[in-house]
């Protein structure tokens, strides 16, 4: 008689594969997970509470620190909410600058995901390639607004800084450069049999489950639901561009991988068109009252961040500070499906599945 015993194992809070401080308590029977309980809140800073005593411009830096891998989209969702409430006109040049930084950010964010995902699975080299190219984008952002990660770039009514001389040309040069390197990435990794064996058919769910769990972004699209807010509920100036939405079939980690890689290519397509249409001059700030006071009422805006639907719900009482500010964080909502996916999987697949969801813990905990 062999005696088997259930074992409780703590993964995290400090574990490289969690990309932050996130803990999962797993109950394992041998190598197989029987139950998983996520524990979060280690990075909870009370952004929503803090925001209630700050004016809208002061809240922008806090959004940088939520999803620190994609701060530009977090910036945008807040200013977009305030602009919707106040019905503000945004100058063309500011619109294009916003769009360009958001799409560059999407490329940068997916590169971080690609590099770290492969690192989780056990491949070191791709990480270096990914960060080499991401650094190009970070450098451009640094030149634009003086920060590498926490940009604080957007303002209600426009953007804080205009593009310096030659900046647009750098973006133009970056597009073919990135296209070429994306091919290199595919040659390096996408056909690798060991890698495919690790991700194909792992962490599967169907469209019904994805919708039930409120998944968004690549997590939702991998299950075959064609839903991208840039196309389906357009915001900003996305309706002016021609791009495709990659959709998966099986809803496994492989589909999510393919979708994110394809999204980089589509973002480059948008950037290329934006470069052609980019206004040569114009204002970067619209006419905004000196004190930003959205009228009484509430609004919920949502945009497509690299991780999915990021939303901002503002309840205003006509003051300079929000009465209540709630962020719908895609990482938080997407993570909910994790315990369901882990049951019956082996410990090695835990890392594959968690990485495939693509969370940023700063956003999970806010």
């Amino acid at each position, binding site marked *: 008689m062999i005696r088997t015993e259930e074992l409780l194992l703590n993964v995290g809070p400090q574990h490289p594969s969690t990309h932050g401080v996130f803990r999962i308590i797993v109950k394992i029977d041998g190598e197989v997970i029987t139950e998983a309980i996520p524990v979060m*809140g280690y990075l909870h800073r009370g952004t929503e*509470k803090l925001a209630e005593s700050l004016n809208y411009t002061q809240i922008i830096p806090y959004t940088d620190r939520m999803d620190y891998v994609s701060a530009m989209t977090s910036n945008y969702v807040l200013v977009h909410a305030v602009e919707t*409430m106040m019905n503000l006109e945004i100058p063309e040049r500011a619109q294009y600058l916003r769009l360009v930084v958001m799409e560059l950010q999407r490329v940068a964010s997916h590169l971080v995901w690609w590099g770290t995902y492969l690192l989780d699975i056990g491949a070191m080299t791709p990480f270096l390639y990914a960060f080499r190219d991401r650094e190009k984008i970070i450098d451009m952002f640094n030149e634009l607004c003086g920060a590498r990660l926490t940009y604080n770039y957007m303002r209600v009514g426009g953007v804080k800084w205009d593009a310096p001389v030659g900046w647009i040309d750098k973006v133009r040069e970056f597009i073919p450069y990135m296209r070429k390197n994306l091919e290199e990435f595919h040659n390096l990794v996408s056909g690798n049999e060991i890698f495919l064996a690790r991700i194909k058919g792992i962490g599967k769910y169907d469209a019904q489950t994805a919708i*039930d*769990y409120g998944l968004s972004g690549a997590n939702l699209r991998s299950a075959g639901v064609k839903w991208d807010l840039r196309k389906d509920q357009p915001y900003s100036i996305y309706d002016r561009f021609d791009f495709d939405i990659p959709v998966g079939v099986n809803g496994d980690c492989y589909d999510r991988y393919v979708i994110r890689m394809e999204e980089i290519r589509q973002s480059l397509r948008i950037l290329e068109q934006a470069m052609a249409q980019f206004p040569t001059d114009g204002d970067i700030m619209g006419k905004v009252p000196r004190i930003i006071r959205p009228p009484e009422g509430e609004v919920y805006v949502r945009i497509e961040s690299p991780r999915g639907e990021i939303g901002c719900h503002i309840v205003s009482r006509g003051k300079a500070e929000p009465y209540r500010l709630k962020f*719908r964080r895609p990482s938080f909502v997407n993570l909910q499906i994790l315990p369901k996916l882990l049951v019956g999987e082996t410990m090695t697949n835990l890392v594959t599945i968690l990485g495939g969801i693509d969370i940023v813990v700063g956003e999970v905990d806010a």
Partner: protein
Amino acid sequence: MSEDQDKNPEATGKVEVTDEGKATPTEQTVEKIKEIQATDPSIQTTSEPSDAPAAEIQEDVDAEKEAKLKANREARAARDAARAEAAKLKAAEAAGVAGATGAAKAVEGDATEPEQPKAPSPNQPKLDRIVQIIKESIGEQAVVEAYINEKDRELPCLIIDKNHWLETALLLRDNPELELHYLRNVSGTDQETHMEVAYYLINLNNKQDYFIKVKTDRDGGEIPSVTSVWQTANWNEREIYDLLGVNFSDHPDLRRIMMPDDWVGYPLRKDYEPIDPEV
């Protein structure tokens, strides 16, 4: 006069920039006006301070200093006038509340009435339809209020009675006409008199979204959990319970999610006072 007008663009330009907030730093007096305007919101809407000084400056372009002083005086006068008017309005409004038909109120009524006819929003039929569906299947008392939120892209909004919320949620999800399978966001608000939980629902096929609100008491208030209807609600409800202290009945796992388990109080409540055991 034509000469004056040639120089005029410069003068008017100066005053105009105060409106846009781009005044050159050397024009300190103009800066001052700006400051006054910034501290007094009531003046922002009046156009007098910008136009009146322009006319003054036009007359003696050479005596720039004097003009600036004049502009300053004008601004101050305009501000005082605006203040007086605001006070008058307030008084009139108070009188209106007291029972007399205040002149200000009458004016206000006139101002809003012409806008009313264009009110039927494109989403009004959709709102009427969803209200009809709920009332037919659940009952008249389920819908407390229904309105269109113009600020939020004409979003149809419903306030549902909490005692009927769970069955209404099931109906919204399963009704073949609505098919609201996707719960995109749940957020809670402490309205000081009561608690509010807001649900944003969307049908992914026809892209029609709705906003549902459920209200409950601040102390010991309970709302039925809709985790059994939409899995998304699970952690979102836990978060609202954790930060706002709203109880969700029949929730499968109602524990704190962001704060530590032994935390005292609900941080997002308006009357929250942090307890520091060391003080």
